[in-house]
């Protein structure tokens, strides 16, 4: 065990989580493109190949369906594969395996087979990349029963969600906030957090409105709350943390207090996960809502070229504009 609290960037917290999981259970193995000697293009598996060897840190052929599909077979055989998809935009060749196999095998076997597979996906934009490197595909996976989705936003969650996703008997997609990989935070690997990974966290209590975000959008949410506070608006900020299942009770409880909800995510608003959340909260908090649930997110466009992404991504002004609109009602 890493066994000492420390200050780590999110990427390194995941590395530590992987290392500790591999040490704790020799059925855990890593698979993916360039995760071996290179340590992954984001260096998340840095050092693990040297430490655990090529049977447990496997540089695979370049074929995402093959990676996820062989992970299924390994899981049936009793292994706990942790798969790295290099970028969000390259998960789609594995979409069939994830949607029809990973998600459904437990159900297909009437519960006889568990598939404790973790699919790690660096996700989101804002890194000035070329096409296909900045996607936010959460809504393309969340509707599929059998999958779980986690989206850590800080180092402590990154460490523990990695551990807990690997321990989970269900398949888990981990959406890692790629543009925050190098943001540091405290990690305490010795004390299992009280919150389960499936629970949302109220990161900043507030009274006037609720602001919900996750993963890479959390810093923006907190920054927005601070700015709003300067304008006299006290926002309650919630980190959704789990995107499947979404912790609706925690969100609803907050909205019942504040009467207003703004959701922000990088994915397009149209068809984004915010829609499902808005729909449920609108239903569950019908009599508490003083304004419609609003969303600030990407547009219904292919993710734009890097020099335009600042206008596509939610930013402080757009979130504050959303907050203002919450109070126009």
């Amino acid at each position, binding site marked *: 065990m890493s066994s000492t609290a420390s200050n780590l960037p999110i990427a390194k917290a995941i590395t530590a989580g992987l290392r500790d999981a591999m040490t704790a259970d020799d059925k855990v*193995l890593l698979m993916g493109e360039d995760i071996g000697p290179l340590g992954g293009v984001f260096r998340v598996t840095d050092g693990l190949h040297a430490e655990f060897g090529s*049977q447990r840190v496997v540089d*695979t*052929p370049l*074929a995402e*369906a*093959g990676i*996820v*599909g*062989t*992970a*299924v*077979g*390994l*899981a*049936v*055989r*009793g*292994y706990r*594969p942790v798969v790295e998809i290099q970028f969000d935009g390259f998960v789609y060749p594995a979409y*069939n*395996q994830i949607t*029809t*196999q990973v998600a*459904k*095998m*437990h*159900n*297909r*076997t*009437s*519960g*006889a*087979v*568990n598939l404790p597979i973790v699919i790690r996906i660096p996700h989101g934009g804002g890194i000035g990349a070329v096409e296909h490197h900045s996607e936010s595909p959460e809504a393309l996976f969340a509707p599929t*029963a*059998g999958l*779980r989705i986690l989206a850590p936003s800080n180092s402590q969650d990154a460490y523990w969600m990695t551990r807990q996703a690997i321990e*989970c*008997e*269900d398949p888990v997609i981990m959406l890692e906030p790629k543009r925050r990989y190098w943001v540091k935070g405290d990690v305490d690997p010795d004390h299992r957090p009280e919150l389960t990974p*499936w629970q949302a966290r109220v990161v900043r209590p507030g009274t006037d409105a609720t602001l919900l975000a996750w993963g890479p959008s959390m810093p923006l949410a907190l920054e927005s709350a601070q700015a709003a506070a300067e304008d006299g608006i006290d926002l309650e900020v919630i980190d959704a943390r789990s995107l499947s*299942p979404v*912790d*609706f*009770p925690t969100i609803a409880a907050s909205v019942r207090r504040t009467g207003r909800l703004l959701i922000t995510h990088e994915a397009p608003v149209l068809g984004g996960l915010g829609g499902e959340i808005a729909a449920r909260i609108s239903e569950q908090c019908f009599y508490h809502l003083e304004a419609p649930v609003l969303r600030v997110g990407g547009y219904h466009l292919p993710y734009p070229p890097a020099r335009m992404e600042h206008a596509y991504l939610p930013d402080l002004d757009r979130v504050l504009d959303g907050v203002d609109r919450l109070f126009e009602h």
Partner: protein
Amino acid sequence: MSVFRSTIPDVAADEPMVQLLAADGTRSPHPEFDAVLAGSGLATPERLRGYYRDMVMIRAADLEATSLQRQGQLGLWASALGQEAAQIGAGHASREQDYLVPTYREHGVAWARGIEPWRLLELFRGISHGGWDPNALRTHPYMIVLGSQAPHAVGYAMGLQRDGVVGTGDPTTDASVLALFGDGASSEGEVAESFTFAASFQAPVVFYTQNNQWAISVPTSVQSRVPLAQRSRGWGIPSVRVDGNDVLAVLGAVRSALDSARAGNGPMFVEALTYRMAAHTTSDDASRYRPAAEEEEWAAKDPILRLRRHLEQQGEIDEQYVTRCDEEAHDLAMQLHHHIHGMEDPDPVRMFDHPYAEPHPIVDAERAEYLEYISQFEDEEERA
């Protein structure tokens, strides 16, 4: 010949086919597979009679299933008629410790692995999506998304490597995987990726295609201009084409490939040339796309008749055995008939049982909602 052309066989369609039993039951020698069969004890007269019985049994079950479908007892049935040798042979060629990864038409393979036919029928009736424990029976569930099972097979084989049960030199404990897919499914990219993984990691897996000439209405020639057996050679995966209606050729090829794989020599590929005698499924009408003459031609190559003729020629089977098989087959069909007709529909609440292995609040809430909703009607019924 150009530097390009010289790289492929001159007449690509000329792929030899290993045959040990001719259609009339005549036995030809095949030094390599004969040795495998002799060494394995897989071809003793007693075993051969057993395969005959297996094939008769599974064909009866298959025909009964078709008639159960006509009676509205099954939603659908995918008949394996004509593929009995290819399936019974492959099933028995595998060893106890091997893991088999079937498609949805592997009734003979399932039978050989000890999976009762009613479990298959359950699936086609619409009771469950898969009824057996894959690890207990060392047989993957029936798989419907074509080709998707192939990487699972390779992954399982990679697991065997990590478990240290490959290449130890003891074939009674070393294990390997048999990955089944059809001629049509061979075109799916996931099958190709499976070849890549298997070759790169030298995984102990044998790919096995029953080329039954058709993918629903599409002939194999649309999937490949050259014999399918050649496909894997592009990865350096050795392969062979066998007569899939010849249980001995299938046994020899599959056992020898599995044993090579378990010994640590990497993947192999076997193409068994056979024929889907029935329509694709009970929903299909084969007369729309293939001539009756073709069906008749293949009827003459029937794998069951062939083995019986061989056993008769060898004097290893008598009328009595044949009759007993027929009777047992009839009994099996009747059992299936009664079993299925007697089946009650499952309580739909069971659909909430296994979406996840661990508790899930949404599923729990929806189950509760469903039960509450349903209870209204029960209340009404009670009041009525």
